[in-house]
């Protein structure tokens, strides 16, 4: 009876290894085709992995807790169906092979082309794939340096799970434009490792500078007090300061596109869409930064909902890879911990990170020379001095504060 290899999959670009978290089946168990048989962890994401083929789990080669490079054989499944030896497609060094999710009968008929190692031409020509990609999708992938392996992983909304233009465009919008590292944080121990690694890298990459502005939140505080219960009853999610600030941030970013950008070599890549990364602290330590996609299209209520949803998903470990990728600007709220000012580290490959802080009642000068008690908050923004100068940052924050000050508190949110 033939035994099929099962390998450690590569569930994202730049992932080099994976850790076995838990085997859901033991040696001798029957496994159905597509049945989940183990859980793995990578520095991007945790995932359950299905069997590539139906049969009996004959050998487990890597134990729980062990970390191995991608493509390592981790198990073998004995099958009584004679399969063509097309499970693993010969690949070059920088390619990877995915576990077979489906054996396409067409594979049996078509000869497998040999990969000669290094690609000199466009990566998507004459390659054997498990899925069909339309000419349009292939072209868009080529133009955006998306490899075949990545394409294989993108979920498709077309007939039969096929990727169409909308799917790949969504994917592109949510993944980083440059080939640099994206700082994404994932839960568990490997999360911490990753956080550390990335924080160091960010400081190395970007010359960090910080600017601080303060803003009078009194009107908003009052307004929120007035409406928060009604709001929650009506919508089922909360009206908090974060979405209010995000709402103003979006407007300000539209006016300062260089702050919603990335750097690629000598080029500044201005992102047309505003995907707001929102730092979420997790209860048992750790930090995760999910992304609100296309915030420019969301109104305050949408933002409230997004903020709440992403917070919940973060805490319940229900985030998926696309939730974590593609952010263009980060907002972190240290105010919930009482911090009045901080010095956040830029979330690469973005060029700025805004911290909102605790709202504190303080005596301030108003109306000429009078003194009044106001609910004040500091905004401090760390930014990459390669492209954002003090003047631009200052103006941006000024504008943001203005938007906050002018925020419409006249009626129902």
């Amino acid at each position, binding site marked *: 009876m033939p035994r099929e290899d099962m390998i450690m999959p590569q569930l994202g670009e730049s992932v080099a290894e994976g850790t076995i978290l838990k085997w859901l089946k033991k040696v001798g168990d029957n496994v159905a085709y597509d049945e989940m048989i183990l859980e793995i962890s990578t520095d991007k994401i945790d995932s359950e992995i299905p069997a590539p083929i139906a049969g009996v789990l004959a050998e487990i080669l890597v134990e729980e807790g062990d970390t191995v490079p991608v493509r390592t054989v981790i198990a073998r499944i004995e099958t009584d169906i004679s399969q063509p030896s097309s499970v693993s497609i010969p690949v070059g060094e920088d390619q990877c092979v995915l576990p077979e999710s489906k054996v396409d009968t067409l594979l049996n008929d078509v000869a497998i082309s040999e990969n000669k190692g290094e690609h000199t031409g466009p990566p998507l020509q004459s390659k054997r794939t498990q899925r069909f990609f*339309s*000419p*349009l*999708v*292939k*072209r868009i992938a080529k133009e955006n340096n998306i490899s075949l392996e990545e394409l294989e992983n993108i979920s498709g909304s*077309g*007939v039969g799970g*096929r990727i*169409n*233009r909308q799917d790949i465009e969504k994917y592109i919008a949510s993944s980083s434009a440059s080939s640099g590292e994206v700082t994404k944080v994932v839960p568990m121990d490997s999360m911490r490792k990753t956080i550390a690694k990335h924080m160091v890298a960010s400081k190395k990459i970007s010359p960090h500078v910080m600017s601080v502005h303060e803003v009078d939140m009194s009107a908003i505080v009052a307004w929120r007090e007035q409406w928060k219960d009604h709001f929650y009853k009506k919508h089922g999610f909360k009206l908090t300061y974060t979405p209010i600030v995000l709402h103003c941030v979006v407007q300000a970013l539209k006016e300062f596109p260089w702050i919603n950008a990335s750097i690629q070599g000598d080029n500044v890549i201005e992102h047309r869409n505003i995907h707001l990364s929102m730092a979420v602290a997790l209860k048992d330590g750790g930090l995760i930064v999910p992304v609100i996609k296309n915030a420019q299209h969301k109104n305050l209520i949408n933002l409230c909902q997004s903020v709440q949803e992403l917070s919940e998903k973060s805490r319940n470990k229900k985030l998926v890879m696309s939730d974590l990728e593609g952010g263009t600007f980060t907002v972190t709220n240290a105010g919930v911990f009482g911090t009045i000012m901080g010095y956040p580290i830029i979330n690469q490959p973005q060029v700025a990170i805004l911290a909102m802080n605790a709202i504190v009642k303080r005596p301030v000068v108003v109306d000429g020379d009078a003194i009044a008690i106001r609910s004040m908050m500091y905004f401090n923004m760390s930014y990459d001095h390669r492209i954002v100068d003090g003047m631009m940052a200052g103006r941006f924050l000024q504008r943001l504060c203005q938007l906050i000050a002018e925020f419409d508190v006249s009626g129902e949110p």
Partner: protein
Amino acid sequence: MTMTYLNAIREALFAEMRRDKEVFLLGQDIAAYGGAFKLTKGFLEEFGKERVIDTPIAESAIVGAAIGAALMGLKPVAEMQFSDFIVGGFNQIVNMAAKCHYRWGAAVPMVIRCPSGGGMGAGPFHSQNPEAWFTRVPGLKVVCPGIPSDAHGLLIAAIRDPNPVLYFEHKFLYRHIKEEVLAIGEPIELGKARVDRVGSDLTIITYGGTLRLVREAAERLQENEISAEIIDLRTLIPLDMDTVSISVRKTNRVLIVHEDTLTGGFGGELSARIAEYDFEYLDAPVKRIASLDTPIPFARNLEQAFMPDTDQICVAAQELAVY
């Protein structure tokens, strides 16, 4: 001015015959009788029998005489009573008219008007759409208007064109479609397609009799939030691939609709060109909706089963939109 498709054609003929004394008509029953569809009613009275000639039932001679007159510099507009009978003149069209200029530099500025198309229960010999036969003969221009303003302007351009032009006017549209015709007496350039409706989700390419069905389908699709762009070819030869390509590259999905039968219909040529020129912009296969590969049946219900309808177009468009 609002007018029917038929009147748009009449007005074009009137305009040209008044403008140029060398434009004349020849065909069966077109003079005193005013034509099988009454299209040339009144022309004999206005222009006289020298310019409105009733011929014998001799399609080959009608076409041949038109060619001879054209070679002398006259501007004949010959009529085939039904396009189905054009085959009687096939030799003269493809071997003589199409090849004179290429061979001995002699232009043949003639128009052959062919009332074509079905949907009226007229049977296998009074309902055909023969345009595709002629698209593959170099030297001929092939025109298929779908709305009155195009019927008007394209006929004027055809009459003024120094080449043999086969003008396929759809009989069903004669009295069933009535629209604004603005530029009376003005030509519309041959060889330019028209964006009939702007859309974003898919491109539907059509011409002639099926334009009205495609328009209906697009309205229905819009209700289901599918935005269809409609390209009306208007002229098959010379073919305006630029307008087609721009649309295909925008929407990435193409449906071709024509009333002619499927195999060998012009949709095949169009599909091949799109696959060749716009391959990397296709997110779905190029589909065609056409009549079945059978002779045209007579019974109304059989004819309906034979011809494309709005439902079919909608279903195909929806499938393409989610492919």
